């Protein structure tokens, strides 16, 4: 057995992770710079964008599938992120960027990726003409395309919160929902509003290719809530929390190694540098692929009850610690995601009323990202959406972390109704939110100043 190098138990463990515990590479995301696609005419910008994506990403899907077969590890999604389109399209005279969104959509279909991210603007400090044009184009762009994802960064720890942009995004979310009312407001599932957005996130809908990134880069998002859940169930009985954290760390290490392997292989074969592994626990609606279930296996009867925030904080940190050891470059969002509609345990807890909007907000203080895939009543005002965005941005700004909002005001629906997106986006009950107004606060506009970086209590 000297030559085999692996114990049969090790080999079986790996195969089981893939076969029964839903270990997968969630995404290989190719970041592509479109900074050389500027042109005074918007139609020419769109044509250049389409041509460049089709050229650079032509082999992405084929290579992804080849790696998948060779290593026997599913790679669920192949995706593309691009330079924030506001930066690219601003060179043109037109202010309606839907044409560029359509070019992105066509390019995504041509190369065979299911999502393309980067219909984006970075406006944490203020807006240029191109930023404003992009934001105004978002509702029509998302309602009129299939695969394009949009994101807007409205705040950062260094710049504070741009409340004019926040107010505008409140209106954009409502408008996007209305324009996709026949699909339960699906356009909003493709729109993320960030504080402290990261430039190398491979996960949708918030992926874009940051301005400090190279010409082309390969980023990998790994997942595996199912693997962590089984490890906690199998090895966690009777352990104190320190030892339980070690079990999670070891498991996160193994999951992340797969991301590192796939990232290196994809980078070598595509001739593009390897960027980062994002070691997030990203749930899917599939049974057993749930972050909520991990929290529950740790001893919380149902996610959302008291203790959930502490359990999530520990899970999130243990995942990072295990993953950081496993990869030469960890980046992106890296942590546990808690989208409501995409996680069977979250859906059940929300339907039961255990998981409330306010508890979700509290949980976002300690895990990666934010208020994600939450359906709220269709008559929620733009000012209330803006206030939700402002709250979440404040959490990110003060805690020096990325936070985001992806809420769906479900057109024509109220508390107790359900939205159905299907596929990875899942389904969710419309959750109650506060009905008292924050409109006067939102309408003040201006910027919330950046917080002190000392006196941290």
């Amino acid at each position, binding site marked *: *057995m*000297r*030559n*085999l*190098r*692996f114990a*049969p*138990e*090790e*080999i*079986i*463990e*790996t*195969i089981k992770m893939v076969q029964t515990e839903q270990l997968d590479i969630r995404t290989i995301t190719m970041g592509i710079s479109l900074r050389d696609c500027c042109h005074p005419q918007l139609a020419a910008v769109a044509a250049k964008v389409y041509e460049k994506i089709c050229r650079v990403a032509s082999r992405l899907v084929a290579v992804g599938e*080849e790696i998948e*077969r*060779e*290593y*026997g*590890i599913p790679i669920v999604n192949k995706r593309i992120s691009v330079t924030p389109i506001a930066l690219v399209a601003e060179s043109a005279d037109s202010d309606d960027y839907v044409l560029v969104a359509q070019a992105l959509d066509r390019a995504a279909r041509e190369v065979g990726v299911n999502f393309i991210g980067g219909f984006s603007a970075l406006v944490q400090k203020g807006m240029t003409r191109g930023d404003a044009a992009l934001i105004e184009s978002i509702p029509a762009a998302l309602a009129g395309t299939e695969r394009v994802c949009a994101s807007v960064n409205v705040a950062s720890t260094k710049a504070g919160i741009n409340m004019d942009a926040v107010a505008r995004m409140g209106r954009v979310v409502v408008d996007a929902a209305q324009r996709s009312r026949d699909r339960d407001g699906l356009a909003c599932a493709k729109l993320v509003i960030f504080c402290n957005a990261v430039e190398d996130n491979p996960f949708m809908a918030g992926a874009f290719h940051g301005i400090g990134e190279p010409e082309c880069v390969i980023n990998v998002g790994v997942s595996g809530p199912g693997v962590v859940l089984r490890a906690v169930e199998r090895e966690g009985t009777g352990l104190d929390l320190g030892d339980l954290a070690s079990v999670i760390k070891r498991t996160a290490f*193994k999951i992340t*190694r*797969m991301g*590192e*392997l796939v990232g290196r*292989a994809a980078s*070598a*074969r595509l001739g593009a540098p390897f960027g980062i592994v994002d070691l997030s626990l990203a749930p899917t609606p599939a049974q057993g692929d749930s972050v909520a279930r991990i929290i529950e296996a740790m001893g919380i009867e149902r996610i959302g009850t008291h203790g959930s925030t502490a359990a999530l904080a520990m899970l999130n940190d243990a995942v990072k610690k295990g993953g950081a050891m496993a990869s030469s470059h960890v980046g992106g969002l890296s942590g546990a995601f808690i989208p409501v509609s995409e996680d069977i345990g979250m859906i059940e807890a929300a339907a039961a009323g255990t998981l409330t909007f306010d508890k979700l907000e509290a949980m976002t203080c300690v895990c990666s990202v934010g208020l994600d895939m939450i359906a709220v009543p269709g008559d929620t005002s733009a000012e209330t959406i803006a206030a939700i965005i402002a709250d979440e941005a404040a959490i990110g700004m003060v805690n020096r972390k990325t936070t985001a909002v992806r809420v769906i005001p479900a057109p024509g629906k109220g508390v107790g109704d359900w939205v159905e997106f299907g596929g990875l986006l899942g389904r969710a009950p419309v959750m109650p939110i506060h009905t008292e107004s924050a409109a006067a606060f939102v309408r003040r506009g201006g910027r919330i100043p950046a917080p002190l970086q000392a006196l941290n209590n």
Partner: protein
Amino acid sequence: MSEGSKRVIVTVIGEDRIGIIAAVSRILADAEVNIVDISQTIMQEFFVMIMMADMKRASLPFEELKRHLNAKGEELGLRIDAQHEDVFRFMHRV
């Protein structure tokens, strides 16, 4: 097959029966793939056979070999698969 190592791990999982090793060895021999090592064990009531094979002189591309193995597995009512050894090296060795 990727640069570097040309070694693959062939795994057979299922119910034990006569001729499994012979069938898998035949496919590998036909493809001019050298068997470096074999291990078999019973794990949680399943027969598990693991082979390390070297594809340095293989006459078939990896994907085709994998298809032959998968097909033989279906014929015998077993799960037969092949994966590049890096999957196991990355996960279990630092």
